[in-house]
C-alpha cells in the first residue's frame, strides 16, 4: 500500500478516528501515568497532535467542497433507524479546527501550569474526554448522538471546573455548572423525543427533510434553543459562566471557551439545518430573537465586566459579551436568509459571526492564559492587589497587549476584521444594531485598558519583587496564540475566503447537508 492510498483511507475514516483517538487516549492515560509524568504529558500532547493532524486532513478536503458522511452500523441507506451518521460539512469542520487547536494549546500550557498539582492523571484523562465530547458534538449528524456527546462534555468539564477541590469556590462553580448543563441536556433529550415521536427519526437530515413546523416542533425549537443558549452562556442564562470560567484552572477555562462554542454551534445547527426553511414560516422571526439576545448579551457582558475586581471573572464577562457578537452576526444572517434582496448582507453577517467564533476563542483564550500566567507567578487574582508586573514579566505583558487589542476589535488584530464585517452588515439591517455593537466594543477596550493599567503598570510593589517570567511551556502556548492572532489580523482575507465563507455557505445552503443523506430532498438553496 503506498502513501496516497493510506492518506485516502485515513481521510475516509477520519470522522470516526477524530473522536476515537482522544477517547481511547483518555483511558490509556491513567495507565501511562504510572510510568512517568513526563511520558504521560508527551503522550497526551501526541494524542491531541495526531487528532489535530487528522482534523486538518479532513478539513482541507471538506473546505474544497465535499461533505463527508461516515456511517456506523448498517450501510443500507434505506434503513434509517439502525445506524448513526457522522456528517461533516464546512461548518462542522470549522468548529472542529477551533476545538482541537484550543485543546492542544491548553495541554501544552498545562505542562508547567499544573506541574505542582497532584491527581494530574485524572486531569489529563478528563481533558481528553472533554475534547472527544466537543469534537463529537461538532461532527455528529444524529441528534441523540449529539445529546450523548454533550453530556460527555458537560460531565468532564464540570469535574475539571471543580478540579481544585481544596477551594470552596471552585467546587461551588463546578456544582452550578453540572446542574445547569444537566437540566439543559435533559430538555434537549425531551425535544429529541418530540422529534422522534413525530418523524420516527433521530438523524438531523432526516428530521430536517420531514419537518412540518407543527405546534410540537415549535415547543421543541424553544426547548433546544433555550437549553443550548444556556450552555453557551447567553444572557439571561449566563450566571454560571463567570463562576465556571473564573474559578477553573486557566488551562481549563481555555478549553471551556471551546465547549461553550460547541453548544453555540448546536444553536446554529438547529436553527439553520433542522428548521431550515420552516423557521421563516412563523410570524415571530427566530432570527430577530437571536439578534436581540445577542445585543442584550454584549451590553450586559461589558457592563458587568466594568465593575469586576477579579482578573479572571472580568475576562469571563468579556467572554459573555463576545458571545453576543456571534449571535448578532449569525442572527442577522437568519433574519435575511430567505430574503433574496439581502443575500449579500446575510452572507457578510454570517461571515462576520462565524469568523468571530474563531477570533473569540483565540482572543479571550489568550487573555485567560495571561491571567493564568499572572496567577502562576504571583498567586494573586484580585486586580486591587496587583501592580507593576510589566517590570518582571515582559513577554506576558506583550501577550496581554495583543489580547487586549484583539478582543476589543482594534486593528491590526483579528478581532477587528470580524467585528468590521458584523458592523457593516448589521448596519444594513438596522443602524441601531451596529451602534450597540460598536459601543460595547469601545466599552470592552475601556475595561481592558483599566485592567492593563492596574495589573501591569504603576510602581513596583515590594511583594512582587521576586516575581519571575513564567516557564517556557506557558510562553510557547501564549506565543502560538498571539502569532495566530496577528497573522489572522494581517491577512483576514486568507481565512475569510478559504474557511469562513464555505462555513457560512454551509449554513445558508442547508439543502446540501440534507441531500447528502436524503438525495430526493428538493428544498433549500
Amino acid at each position, binding site marked *: 500500500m503506498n502513501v496516497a492510498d493510506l492518506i485516502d483511507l485515513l481521510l475516509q475514516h477520519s470522522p470516526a478516528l477524530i473522536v476515537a483517538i482522544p477517547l481511547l487516549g483518555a483511558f490509556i492515560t491513567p495507565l501511562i501515568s504510572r510510568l512517568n509524568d513526563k511520558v504521560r504529558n508527551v503522550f497526551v500532547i501526541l494524542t491531541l497532535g495526531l487528532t489535530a493532524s487528522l482534523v486538518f486532513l479532513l478539513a482541507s478536503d471538506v473546505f474544497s467542497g465535499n461533505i463527508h458522511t461516515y456511517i456506523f452500523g448498517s450501510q443500507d441507506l434505506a434503513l434509517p433507524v439502525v445506524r448513526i451518521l457522522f456528517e461533516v460539512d464546512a461548518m462542522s469542520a470549522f468548529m472542529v479546527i477551533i476545538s482541537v487547536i484550543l485543546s492542544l494549546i491548553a495541554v501544552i500550557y498545562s505542562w508547567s501550569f499544573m506541574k505542582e498539582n497532584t491527581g494530574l492523571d485524572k486531569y489529563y484523562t478528563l481533558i481528553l474526554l472533554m475534547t472527544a465530547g466537543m469534537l463529537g458534538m461538532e461532527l455528529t449528524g444524529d441528534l441523540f448522538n449529539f445529546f450523548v456527546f454533550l453530556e460527555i462534555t458537560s*460531565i468532564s468539564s*464540570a469535574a475539571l471546573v471543580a478540579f481544585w477541590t481544596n477551594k470552596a469556590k471552585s467546587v461551588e462553580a463546578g456544582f452550578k455548572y*453540572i446542574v445547569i448543563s444537566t437540566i439543559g441536556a435533559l430538555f434537549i433529550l425531551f425535544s429529541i*423525543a418530540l422529534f422522534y415521536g413525530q418523524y420516527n427519526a433521530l438523524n438531523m437530515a432526516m428530521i430536517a427533510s420531514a419537518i412540518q413546523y407543527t405546534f410540537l416542533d415549535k415547543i421543541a425549537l424553544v426547548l433546544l434553543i433555550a437549553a443550548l443558549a444556556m450552555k453557551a452562556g447567553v444572557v439571561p442564562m449566563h450566571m454560571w459562566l463567570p463562576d465556571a470560567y473564573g474559578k477553573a484552572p486557566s488551562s481549563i477555562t481555555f478549553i471551556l471557551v471551546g465547549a461553550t462554542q460547541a453548544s453555540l454551534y448546536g444553536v446554529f445547527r438547529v436553527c439553520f439545518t433542522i428548521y431550515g426553511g420552516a423557521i421563516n414560516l412563523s410570524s415571530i422571526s427566530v432570527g430577530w430573537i437571536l439578534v436581540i439576545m445577542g445585543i442584550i448579551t454584549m451590553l450586559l457582558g461589558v457592563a458587568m465586566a466594568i465593575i469586576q475586581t477579579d482578573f479572571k471573572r472580568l475576562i469571563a464577562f468579556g467572554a459573555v459579551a463576545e458571545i453576543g457578537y456571534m449571535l448578532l452576526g449569525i442572527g442577522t444572517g437568519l433574519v435575511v436568509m430567505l430574503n433574496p434582496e439581502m443575500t449579500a448582507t446575510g452572507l457578510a453577517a454570517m461571515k462576520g459571526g462565524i469568523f468571530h467564533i474563531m477570533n473569540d476563542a483565540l482572543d479571550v483564550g489568550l487573555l485567560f492564559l495571561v491571567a493564568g500566567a499572572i496567577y502562576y507567578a504571583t498567586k494573586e487574582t484580585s486586580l486591587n492587589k496587583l501592580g507593576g508586573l510589566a517590570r518582571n514579566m515582559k513577554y506576558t505583558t506583550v501577550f496581554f497587549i495583543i489580547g487586549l487589542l484583539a478582543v476589543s476589535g482594534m486593528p491590526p488584530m483579528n478581532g477587528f476584521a470580524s467585528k468590521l464585517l458584523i458592523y457593516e452588515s448589521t448596519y444594513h439591517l438596522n443602524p441601531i444594531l451596529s451602534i450597540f455593537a460598536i459601543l460595547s466594543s469601545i466599552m470592552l477596550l475601556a475595561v481592558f485598558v483599566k485592567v492593563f493599567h492596574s495589573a501591569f503598570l504603576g510602581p513596583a510593589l515590594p511583594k512582587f519583587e521576586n516575581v519571575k517570567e513564567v516557564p517556557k511551556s506557558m510562553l510557547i502556548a501564549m506565543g502560538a496564540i498571539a502569532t495566530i492572532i496577528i497573522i489572522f489580523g494581517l491577512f483576514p482575507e486568507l481565512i475569510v475566503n478559504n474557511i469562513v465563507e464555505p462555513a457560512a455557505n454551509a449554513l445558508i445552503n442547508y439543502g446540501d447537508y440534507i441531500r447528502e443523506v436524503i438525495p430526493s430532498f428538493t428544498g433549500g438553496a
Partner: protein
Amino acid sequence: MIFNIPFIAVAALILIGLYAVIFKRNLIKMVIGITLIESGVNLFLITLGYREGSIAPIYTSSPGGIMALPVPQALTLTSIVIGVAVLALMLSLVIHIYRHYGTLDARKIGGPEE
C-alpha cells in the same frame, strides 16, 4: 382517557423536578429534583415506543403480534447510564461543598470572595 396517564405522569414528574430545583434550598433536594426530571424524560421516551398489548421486541423468538419499538428503549438505557454518571458527580461535589461550608443550605453557601 386511561392511555394518557403516562403522559400526565411525565408532565407531573418534570414539573415537580423543576419545582424542587428552583425553589428548594437544600442541595440534595436539588439533586433529587434533577433525577425526577430525568425520570420524567425517560418515561416519555418509553411511552412513545409502547403500544397497548405489544410484546418485547425480540425478532427471532416472536410469537407474532405487535412489538414495542426498541429504539426508544435503547435511548432510555443510554440516558439512564449518563444519568448515573451525572448523579455520582453531583453528589461527590455536594460532599465537597459540605466539607467546605459545613452546610447544604444554598443560601449560606457562597458569600464574599475568599
